Protein backbone atom coordinates (compact mmCIF):
# COMPACT_ATOMS: atom_id res chain seq x y z
CA UNK A 1 0.00 0.00 0.00
CA UNK A 2 1.51 3.31 -1.03
CA UNK A 3 1.50 6.55 0.92
CA UNK A 4 -1.20 7.96 -1.31
CA UNK A 5 -3.62 5.17 -0.38
CA UNK A 6 -2.88 5.60 3.31
CA UNK A 7 -3.43 9.33 2.99
CA UNK A 8 -6.75 8.64 1.27
CA UNK A 9 -7.69 6.30 4.10
CA UNK A 10 -7.02 9.06 6.60
CA UNK A 11 -9.38 11.31 4.62
CA UNK A 12 -12.12 8.70 4.33
CA UNK A 13 -11.97 7.01 7.72
CA UNK A 14 -13.51 9.88 9.75
CA UNK A 15 -16.36 9.96 7.20
CA UNK A 16 -16.76 6.20 7.50
CA UNK A 17 -17.34 6.64 11.24
CA UNK A 18 -19.30 9.90 11.30
CA UNK A 19 -21.22 9.04 8.12
CA UNK A 20 -22.77 6.10 9.95
CA UNK A 21 -25.86 7.49 11.76
CA UNK A 22 -25.67 4.94 14.57
CA UNK A 23 -21.97 5.48 15.26
CA UNK A 24 -22.56 9.22 15.21
CA UNK A 25 -25.48 8.89 17.64
CA UNK A 26 -23.22 6.89 19.97
CA UNK A 27 -20.55 9.59 19.85
CA UNK A 28 -17.93 7.28 18.36
CA UNK A 29 -14.68 9.00 17.35
CA UNK A 30 -12.10 8.20 14.72
CA UNK A 31 -8.56 8.03 16.14
CA UNK A 32 -6.24 6.44 13.60
CA UNK A 33 -5.97 4.26 10.51
CA UNK A 34 -3.07 2.49 8.81
CA UNK A 35 -2.66 -0.43 6.46
CA UNK A 36 -4.98 -3.11 7.87
CA UNK A 37 -5.28 -1.28 11.16
CA UNK A 38 -7.81 1.05 12.77
CA UNK A 39 -8.43 2.67 16.15
CA UNK A 40 -11.69 4.25 17.28
CA UNK A 41 -12.93 5.52 20.63
CA UNK A 42 -16.24 5.59 22.46
CA UNK A 43 -16.53 8.23 25.19
CA UNK A 44 -18.53 7.03 28.21
CA UNK A 45 -22.21 7.92 28.14
CA UNK A 46 -24.99 7.18 30.61
CA UNK A 47 -27.22 6.38 27.61
CA UNK A 48 -25.35 3.12 27.01
CA UNK A 49 -25.25 1.69 30.52
CA UNK A 50 -26.14 -2.00 30.71
CA UNK A 51 -26.24 -2.57 34.45
CA UNK A 52 -28.00 0.20 36.42
CA UNK A 53 -26.32 -0.80 39.68
CA UNK A 54 -22.69 -0.89 38.54
CA UNK A 55 -23.21 1.74 35.77
CA UNK A 56 -21.05 -0.39 33.49
CA UNK A 57 -21.55 0.04 29.72
CA UNK A 58 -23.74 -2.56 28.00
CA UNK A 59 -21.95 -5.25 26.00
CA UNK A 60 -23.85 -4.04 22.95
CA UNK A 61 -22.03 -0.70 23.02
CA UNK A 62 -18.67 -2.50 23.04
CA UNK A 63 -19.94 -4.80 20.26
CA UNK A 64 -20.83 -1.81 18.08
CA UNK A 65 -17.46 -0.14 18.68
CA UNK A 66 -15.53 -3.33 17.85
CA UNK A 67 -17.69 -3.96 14.77
CA UNK A 68 -17.04 -0.45 13.45
CA UNK A 69 -13.28 -0.54 14.19
CA UNK A 70 -12.95 -4.03 12.68
CA UNK A 71 -14.87 -3.00 9.55
CA UNK A 72 -12.57 -0.03 9.07
CA UNK A 73 -9.49 -2.22 9.56
CA UNK A 74 -10.88 -4.64 6.95
CA UNK A 75 -11.35 -1.82 4.42
CA UNK A 76 -7.81 -0.64 5.22
CA UNK A 77 -6.57 -4.19 4.62
CA UNK A 78 -7.32 -4.00 0.90
CA UNK A 79 -5.21 -2.02 -1.51
CA UNK A 80 -8.25 -1.38 -3.68
CA UNK A 81 -11.50 0.47 -2.94
CA UNK A 82 -13.64 -2.03 -1.06
CA UNK A 83 -16.82 -2.07 0.94
CA UNK A 84 -17.31 -4.69 3.64
CA UNK A 85 -20.22 -6.41 5.38
CA UNK A 86 -19.85 -8.24 8.70
CA UNK A 87 -20.19 -11.99 8.27
CA UNK A 88 -19.37 -13.10 11.81
CA UNK A 89 -18.39 -11.30 14.99
CA UNK A 90 -17.23 -13.17 18.05
CA UNK A 91 -16.50 -11.30 21.28
CA UNK A 92 -15.11 -12.35 24.65
CA UNK A 93 -15.93 -9.95 27.46
CA UNK A 94 -13.08 -10.23 29.90
CA UNK A 95 -13.99 -7.63 32.47
CA UNK A 96 -16.37 -4.74 33.06
CA UNK A 97 -15.37 -1.42 31.52
CA UNK A 98 -14.73 1.12 34.26
CA UNK A 99 -17.68 3.56 34.44
CA UNK A 100 -16.74 7.03 33.20
CA UNK A 101 -13.80 5.91 31.11
CA UNK A 102 -13.53 6.22 27.32
CA UNK A 103 -13.24 2.88 25.54
CA UNK A 104 -10.65 2.47 22.81
CA UNK A 105 -10.95 -0.21 20.15
CA UNK A 106 -7.98 -1.23 18.04
CA UNK A 107 -8.48 -3.66 15.19
CA UNK A 108 -6.00 -5.49 12.98
CA UNK A 109 -6.91 -7.06 9.66
CA UNK A 110 -4.25 -9.76 9.49
CA UNK A 111 -5.41 -11.52 6.34
CA UNK A 112 -7.43 -10.63 3.28
CA UNK A 113 -8.53 -12.89 0.47
CA UNK A 114 -10.45 -11.90 -2.64
CA UNK A 115 -13.78 -12.16 -0.80
CA UNK A 116 -13.07 -12.36 2.94
CA UNK A 117 -11.17 -10.21 5.46
CA UNK A 118 -10.07 -11.63 8.85
CA UNK A 119 -9.85 -9.15 11.71
CA UNK A 120 -8.92 -9.25 15.40
CA UNK A 121 -9.85 -6.47 17.78
CA UNK A 122 -9.15 -5.31 21.32
CA UNK A 123 -11.30 -2.97 23.41
CA UNK A 124 -9.70 -1.42 26.49
CA UNK A 125 -10.04 1.62 28.72
CA UNK A 126 -6.45 2.81 28.81
CA UNK A 127 -4.24 -0.24 29.10
CA UNK A 128 -4.15 -2.48 26.05
CA UNK A 129 -2.67 -5.27 28.17
CA UNK A 130 -5.76 -5.27 30.38
CA UNK A 131 -8.52 -5.55 27.78
CA UNK A 132 -12.23 -5.15 28.42
CA UNK A 133 -13.07 -7.31 25.42
CA UNK A 134 -11.43 -9.06 22.50
CA UNK A 135 -13.00 -9.83 19.16
CA UNK A 136 -12.50 -11.97 16.10
CA UNK A 137 -14.46 -11.10 12.98
CA UNK A 138 -14.80 -11.97 9.32
CA UNK A 139 -16.07 -9.57 6.68
CA UNK A 140 -17.28 -10.11 3.14
CA UNK A 141 -15.55 -7.78 0.74
CA UNK A 142 -17.72 -6.31 -1.96
CA UNK A 143 -16.24 -5.81 -5.39
CA UNK A 144 -16.70 -2.17 -6.36
CA UNK A 145 -18.08 -3.12 -9.77
CA UNK A 146 -20.90 -5.15 -8.27
CA UNK A 147 -22.12 -2.44 -5.95
CA UNK A 148 -21.80 1.05 -7.24
CA UNK A 149 -24.06 2.16 -4.41
CA UNK A 150 -21.83 0.96 -1.62
CA UNK A 151 -20.68 3.24 1.09
CA UNK A 152 -16.90 3.43 0.85
CA UNK A 153 -17.03 3.38 -2.93
CA UNK A 154 -19.22 6.46 -2.81
CA UNK A 155 -16.85 8.11 -0.39
CA UNK A 156 -13.83 7.24 -2.47
CA UNK A 157 -15.44 8.46 -5.69
CA UNK A 158 -16.35 11.67 -3.97
CA UNK A 159 -12.87 12.20 -2.62
CA UNK A 160 -11.38 11.60 -6.06
CA UNK A 161 -13.55 14.09 -7.87
Amino acid at each position, binding site marked *: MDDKLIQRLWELAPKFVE*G*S*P*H*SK*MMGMKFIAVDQGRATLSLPYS*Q*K*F*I*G*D*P*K*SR*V*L*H*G*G*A*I*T*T*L*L*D*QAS*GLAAIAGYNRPTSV*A*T*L*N*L*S*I*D*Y*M*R*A*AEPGKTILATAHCYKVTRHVAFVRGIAHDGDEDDP*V*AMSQATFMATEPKSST*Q*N*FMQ*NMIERSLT
Partner: protein
Amino acid sequence: MTEAEIAQQLERIPYAKTLGVTPNMVGDEFTLILPFSQDNIGNPFLPALHGGVIGGFLEIAAIAQILLESDDKKFPKPIGINVDYLRSGKPQDLFARARITKLGSRVANVRVRAWQSNFDEPIATLHGHFLMTEDNDAA
Protein backbone atom coordinates in the same frame (compact mmCIF):
# COMPACT_ATOMS: atom_id res chain seq x y z
CA MET B 1 -43.35 -12.72 34.22
CA THR B 2 -45.91 -10.58 32.41
CA GLU B 3 -45.20 -8.25 29.50
CA ALA B 4 -45.48 -5.26 31.85
CA GLU B 5 -42.95 -6.81 34.24
CA ILE B 6 -40.44 -7.45 31.43
CA ALA B 7 -40.99 -3.89 30.20
CA GLN B 8 -40.20 -2.72 33.72
CA GLN B 9 -36.96 -4.75 33.77
CA LEU B 10 -35.93 -3.39 30.34
CA GLU B 11 -36.75 0.10 31.52
CA ARG B 12 -33.92 -0.27 34.05
CA ILE B 13 -31.34 -0.80 31.28
CA PRO B 14 -30.36 2.59 29.79
CA TYR B 15 -28.87 0.98 26.66
CA ALA B 16 -32.16 -0.85 25.98
CA LYS B 17 -34.05 2.42 26.51
CA THR B 18 -31.72 4.28 24.15
CA LEU B 19 -32.29 1.71 21.40
CA GLY B 20 -36.04 1.85 22.14
CA VAL B 21 -36.69 -1.89 22.45
CA THR B 22 -40.19 -3.08 23.39
CA PRO B 23 -41.28 -6.50 24.67
CA ASN B 24 -44.14 -8.53 23.24
CA MET B 25 -45.60 -11.49 25.08
CA VAL B 26 -48.01 -13.91 23.42
CA GLY B 27 -48.76 -16.73 25.82
CA ASP B 28 -45.34 -17.89 26.99
CA GLU B 29 -43.67 -16.79 23.77
CA PHE B 30 -41.53 -13.72 24.31
CA THR B 31 -40.47 -11.53 21.37
CA LEU B 32 -38.31 -8.45 21.66
CA ILE B 33 -38.92 -5.68 19.13
CA LEU B 34 -36.51 -3.03 17.90
CA PRO B 35 -38.73 -0.41 16.24
CA PHE B 36 -37.04 1.12 13.22
CA SER B 37 -35.15 4.34 13.88
CA GLN B 38 -32.90 6.36 11.60
CA ASP B 39 -30.42 6.38 14.51
CA ASN B 40 -29.85 2.64 14.06
CA ILE B 41 -28.66 2.87 10.47
CA GLY B 42 -25.03 1.89 9.88
CA ASN B 43 -24.74 2.38 6.15
CA PRO B 44 -26.96 5.23 4.91
CA PHE B 45 -26.32 4.44 1.23
CA LEU B 46 -27.90 0.98 1.18
CA PRO B 47 -29.53 1.74 3.73
CA ALA B 48 -28.87 -0.99 6.30
CA LEU B 49 -29.05 -1.35 10.08
CA HIS B 50 -25.71 -1.14 11.90
CA GLY B 51 -24.26 -4.59 12.61
CA GLY B 52 -23.41 -3.42 16.12
CA VAL B 53 -27.03 -2.50 16.85
CA ILE B 54 -28.15 -5.92 15.63
CA GLY B 55 -25.58 -7.58 17.92
CA GLY B 56 -26.47 -5.36 20.88
CA PHE B 57 -30.20 -5.96 20.35
CA LEU B 58 -29.67 -9.75 20.24
CA GLU B 59 -27.71 -9.47 23.47
CA ILE B 60 -30.56 -7.58 25.17
CA ALA B 61 -32.98 -10.29 23.96
CA ALA B 62 -30.75 -12.98 25.50
CA ILE B 63 -30.52 -11.09 28.82
CA ALA B 64 -34.30 -10.49 28.87
CA GLN B 65 -34.96 -14.20 28.27
CA ILE B 66 -32.65 -15.15 31.16
CA LEU B 67 -34.40 -12.63 33.45
CA LEU B 68 -37.70 -14.13 32.32
CA GLU B 69 -36.75 -17.73 33.06
CA SER B 70 -34.66 -17.34 36.21
CA ASP B 71 -35.88 -16.09 39.55
CA ASP B 72 -32.72 -14.09 39.96
CA LYS B 73 -33.10 -10.33 39.80
CA LYS B 74 -29.38 -9.86 39.14
CA PHE B 75 -28.38 -8.83 35.64
CA PRO B 76 -26.67 -11.59 33.64
CA LYS B 77 -23.26 -10.49 32.37
CA PRO B 78 -22.05 -11.58 28.93
CA ILE B 79 -18.97 -13.83 28.93
CA GLY B 80 -18.84 -14.37 25.21
CA ILE B 81 -21.07 -13.87 22.19
CA ASN B 82 -20.85 -15.04 18.60
CA VAL B 83 -23.02 -13.30 16.02
CA ASP B 84 -23.63 -14.57 12.48
CA TYR B 85 -24.84 -11.95 10.04
CA LEU B 86 -26.99 -13.71 7.45
CA ARG B 87 -28.76 -10.90 5.61
CA SER B 88 -28.52 -7.14 5.50
CA GLY B 89 -30.76 -5.42 8.07
CA LYS B 90 -33.44 -3.52 6.18
CA PRO B 91 -34.71 -0.14 7.45
CA GLN B 92 -37.64 -1.85 9.20
CA ASP B 93 -38.60 -3.15 12.64
CA LEU B 94 -36.40 -5.98 13.89
CA PHE B 95 -37.65 -8.92 15.99
CA ALA B 96 -35.77 -11.34 18.21
CA ARG B 97 -36.64 -14.55 20.02
CA ALA B 98 -34.26 -16.32 22.40
CA ARG B 99 -33.98 -19.97 23.44
CA ILE B 100 -32.03 -20.94 26.54
CA THR B 101 -30.10 -24.12 25.77
CA LYS B 102 -29.00 -24.54 29.36
CA LEU B 103 -29.76 -22.53 32.47
CA GLY B 104 -27.14 -23.51 35.01
CA SER B 105 -26.63 -22.06 38.46
CA ARG B 106 -23.84 -19.79 37.22
CA VAL B 107 -23.88 -19.83 33.44
CA ALA B 108 -26.71 -19.57 30.92
CA ASN B 109 -26.18 -20.74 27.35
CA VAL B 110 -28.48 -18.89 24.95
CA ARG B 111 -29.28 -18.78 21.24
CA VAL B 112 -31.15 -15.87 19.68
CA ARG B 113 -32.63 -15.39 16.21
CA ALA B 114 -33.38 -11.99 14.66
CA TRP B 115 -35.70 -11.56 11.71
CA GLN B 116 -37.67 -8.87 9.93
CA SER B 117 -40.44 -9.72 7.47
CA ASN B 118 -40.19 -13.51 7.73
CA PHE B 119 -39.26 -15.64 10.76
CA ASP B 120 -37.86 -18.31 8.42
CA GLU B 121 -35.43 -15.80 6.91
CA PRO B 122 -33.33 -14.71 9.91
CA ILE B 123 -31.03 -11.74 9.34
CA ALA B 124 -28.75 -12.65 12.26
CA THR B 125 -28.29 -15.26 14.97
CA LEU B 126 -26.44 -15.04 18.28
CA HIS B 127 -24.96 -17.73 20.43
CA GLY B 128 -23.72 -16.60 23.80
CA HIS B 129 -23.03 -17.53 27.37
CA PHE B 130 -23.83 -15.31 30.32
CA LEU B 131 -22.62 -15.26 33.90
CA MET B 132 -25.31 -15.04 36.53
CA THR B 133 -23.35 -14.35 39.70
CA GLU B 134 -22.21 -11.13 41.34
CA ASP B 135 -18.63 -11.89 40.31
CA ASN B 136 -17.22 -8.56 39.14
CA ASP B 137 -14.25 -9.99 37.29
CA ALA B 138 -16.28 -10.70 34.19
CA ALA B 139 -18.19 -8.03 32.34
